[in-house]
């Protein structure tokens, strides 16, 4: 029996090899789809190995502080080593990355077919992304993680800007990178604080591993730890597109839809959630940071959901939905921390990770469906779609499954995880009443989610066609991944009830905190879910959302012009303008900084260099004035000699004694 988990470091190597091969091989040896074959092989290799590793983890093996390590840097007394870290949390991420990654690469074979020469670049970049994403989740210290963290950002940048000749794509790519970099700076600062006080960024040391927390060991003052954790979460705000840095994600929809599905829905944007979850051992020592996390999550969930209401671009709807769902996860993590502190239970944490996994599947599914639609229709704008149900049966059904899942209708996956999230938040209210408010926001979000998802579905697939397009069903290579993902969206929720149950599985990754294991049997969980009245509150609201969308966007006779006048009109415009947050960045942040830059440039040219040139001018031109004294008249020379003598005499006889030399 091979100990597969020890080979976890090989997972990123497969896609990386594919990246190198696609990037460097001569064009004629690339074969199918200009490198698509290598890409599929790379992704599949990683998938297989991931599954083997996950199997080991399911069997109770982990690879944490005793993993093999190699030295990256030695400075003075500091030794920075890199290694791998595989525990239950990693396993969840591996599942999402490997499955979605492989399916997206296969799907790309159809979706990117028309790209021609650009495909090579596309596959290379996708492979690089998958590789570094694996690297991110198996890192065993923050620095290593940060390196991959930045690299996934890079891949995101490159892939958003894949169609670089479109100005909007180039601009969106740049924005995405810069905005996430603002978050990265906070993360970097947080890591630096930890590094200063603890002297290492290894998870094994930072998380104590039985040696007590780093605060209790007196290595870091409480206020600094709070600052550090808040800053680390700042990284998550950027990467996971949380308020107020969330606007880059909708813009990032300029990239190919496959990229949106993989990077901006299923994997990279989850890195922030993963980071926050990974930092749990530190976060639970800083309740202030946890509250901050929860509030950001709740606010993001609601705001993004409202923005999705008025979006007409099918991908933007999904993007806002992604932001909103990420907010859920963050909210659950914030609330879960309170549960860990006060009740020693991991409910919120587990719920967040459960939602992360489910969301990875159904959101990837939704994006790929949207891609299928766009591929067929040739536009993103839902206002020119409609009535595609008949022409694209597989796409419409799989998308319906995705929508139902995200709306939270049992027994699809979204229901289970969303319910767990809301339950955890509500439970947090016991320890801080703010969580009740956040719970209310979460429930409202659930209602809005159901509404806008079905608004989207109805606008796309139902009714009569609104434009002259010859839509057709996508080829098999695209629909098969859709069907697989749809299947996963249908069943992944039942992970709650398989084996030891998802909750029991994931909470082992933080059992040192300490957390009291859930002594619920799997049936108890089901019973608890279905006997809790709160479950029905969100369920009823979700159904209400669907029905409202049905009324407004499907049944004829609803006059949507009421949205255009009065207070509702203002609200509508605010929503269409995404609460003016984007404008704020463009008008304020960009212009102010650019203004600073112009002022600095002016200062540089006219003041600093002006002084330099002024001196130079003096040096170069003073002589032209002085030399006029040289009149050519010899008697003036003699006079000047006498004058010089007189001045010297006066100086020596009168000035010198008086000056006190």
């Amino acid at each position: 029996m091979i100990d597969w988990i020890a080979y976890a470091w090989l997972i990123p190597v497969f896609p990386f090899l594919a990246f190198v091969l696609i990037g460097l091989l001569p064009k004629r040896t690339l074969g199918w789809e200009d490198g698509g074959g290598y890409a599929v092989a790379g992704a599949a290799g990683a998938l297989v190995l991931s599954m083997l590793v996950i199997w080991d983890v399911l069997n109770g093996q982990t690879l944490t502080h005793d993993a093999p390590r190699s030295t990256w840097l030695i400075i003075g007394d500091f030794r920075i080593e890199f290694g791998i870290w595989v525990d239950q949390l990693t396993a969840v991420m591996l599942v999402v990355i490997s499955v979605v990654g492989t399916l997206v690469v296969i799907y790309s074979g159809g979706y990117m077919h028309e790209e021609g020469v650009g495909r090579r670049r596309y596959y290379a970049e996708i492979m690089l992304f998958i590789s570094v994403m694996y690297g991110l989740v198996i890192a065993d210290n923050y620095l290593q993680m940060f390196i991959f963290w930045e690299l996934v950002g890079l891949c995101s940048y490159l892939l958003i800007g894949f169609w670089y000749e479109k100005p909007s794509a180039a601009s969106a790519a740049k924005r995405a990178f810069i905005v996430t970099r603002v978050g990265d700076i906070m993360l970097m600062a947080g890591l630096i604080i930890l590094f200063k006080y603890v002297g290492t960024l290894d998870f094994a040391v930072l998380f104590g591993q039985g040696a007590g927390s780093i605060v209790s060991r007196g290595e870091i003052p409480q206020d600094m730890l709070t600052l550090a954790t808040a800053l680390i979460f700042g990284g998550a705000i950027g990467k996971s597109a949380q308020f107020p840095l969330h606007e880059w994600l909708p813009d990032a929809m300029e990239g190919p839809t496959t990229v949106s599905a993989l990077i901006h829905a299923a994997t990279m944007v989850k890195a922030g959630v993963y980071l926050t979850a990974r930092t749990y051992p530190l976060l639970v020592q800083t309740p202030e940071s946890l509250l901050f996390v929860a509030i950001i999550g709740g606010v993001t969930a609601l705001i993004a959901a409202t923005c999705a209401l008025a979006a007409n671009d099918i991908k933007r709807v999904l993007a806002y939905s992604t932001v909103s769902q990420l907010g859920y996860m963050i909210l659950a993590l914030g609330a879960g921390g309170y549960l860990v502190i006060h009740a020693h239970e991991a409910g919120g944490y587990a719920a967040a990770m459960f939602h992360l996994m489910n969301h990875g599947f159904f959101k990837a599914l939704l994006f790929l469906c949207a891609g299928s639609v766009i591929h067929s229709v040739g536009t993103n704008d839902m206002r020119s779609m409609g009535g595609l149900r008949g022409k694209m049966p597989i796409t419409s059904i799989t998308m319906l499954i995705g929508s139902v899942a995200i709306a939270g209708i049992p027994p699809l996956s979204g229901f289970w995880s969303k319910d767990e999230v809301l339950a955890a938040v509500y439970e947090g209210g016991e320890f801080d009443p703010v969580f009740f408010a956040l719970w209310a926001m979460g429930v409202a979000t659930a209602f809005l989610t159901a509404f806008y998802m079905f608004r989207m579905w109805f606008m796309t697939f139902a009714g009569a066609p609104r434009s002259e397009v010859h839509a057709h069903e996508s080829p098999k290579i695209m629909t098969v991944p859709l069907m697989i993902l749809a299947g996963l969206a249908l069943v992944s929720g039942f992970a709650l009830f398989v084996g030891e149950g998802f909750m029991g599985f994931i909470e082992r990754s933080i059992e040192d905190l300490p957390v009291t294991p859930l002594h619920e049997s799997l049936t108890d969980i089901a019973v608890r879910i279905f006997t809790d009245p709160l479950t029905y509150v969100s369920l009823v609201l979700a159904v209400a959302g669907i029905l409202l969308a049905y009324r407004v966007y499907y049944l004829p006779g609803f006059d949507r012009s009421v949205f255009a006048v009065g207070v509702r009109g203002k609200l509508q415009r605010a929503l269409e303008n995404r609460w003016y947050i984007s404008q704020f960045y463009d008008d304020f942040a960009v212009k102010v900084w650019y203004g600073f830059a112009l002022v600095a440039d002016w200062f540089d040219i006219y003041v600093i260099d002006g002084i330099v040139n002024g001196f130079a001018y003096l040096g170069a031109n003073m002589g032209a004035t002085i030399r006029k004294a040289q009149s050519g008249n010899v008697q003036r020379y003699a006079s000047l000699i006498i004058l010089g003598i007189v001045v010297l005499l006066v100086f020596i006889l009168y000035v010198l004694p008086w000056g006190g030399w």
Partner: protein
Amino acid sequence: MIPLEYWLILSSLMFVIGAYGVMTRKNAIVVLMCIEIMLNAANINLVAFSSYYSTLHPAFGTDVSGQVFALFSIAIAAAEVAVGLAILLSVYRRYQTIDVDKINILRW
């Protein structure tokens, strides 16, 4: 015996007169003469100091080096005048004048 101061006042006056002449007179010959006056002012000084040496420096006895110096300087002045006049001659050939104000193509 005439006090030393008288000689010094004389030489100083000659020196100042000579210097004034160098600065103001336009004719180069006169300028040359003024320079000679200045040199002779110094000669008077040298001879006078030599003559009054024993009163000035009672510890040293007498000294004639001042008078020797004056002889040297007279000879040198003569040589200088000779060269100077030759130069003025060649200037006059080129400029048709020896007005020092007009000799100023070299400047700045």
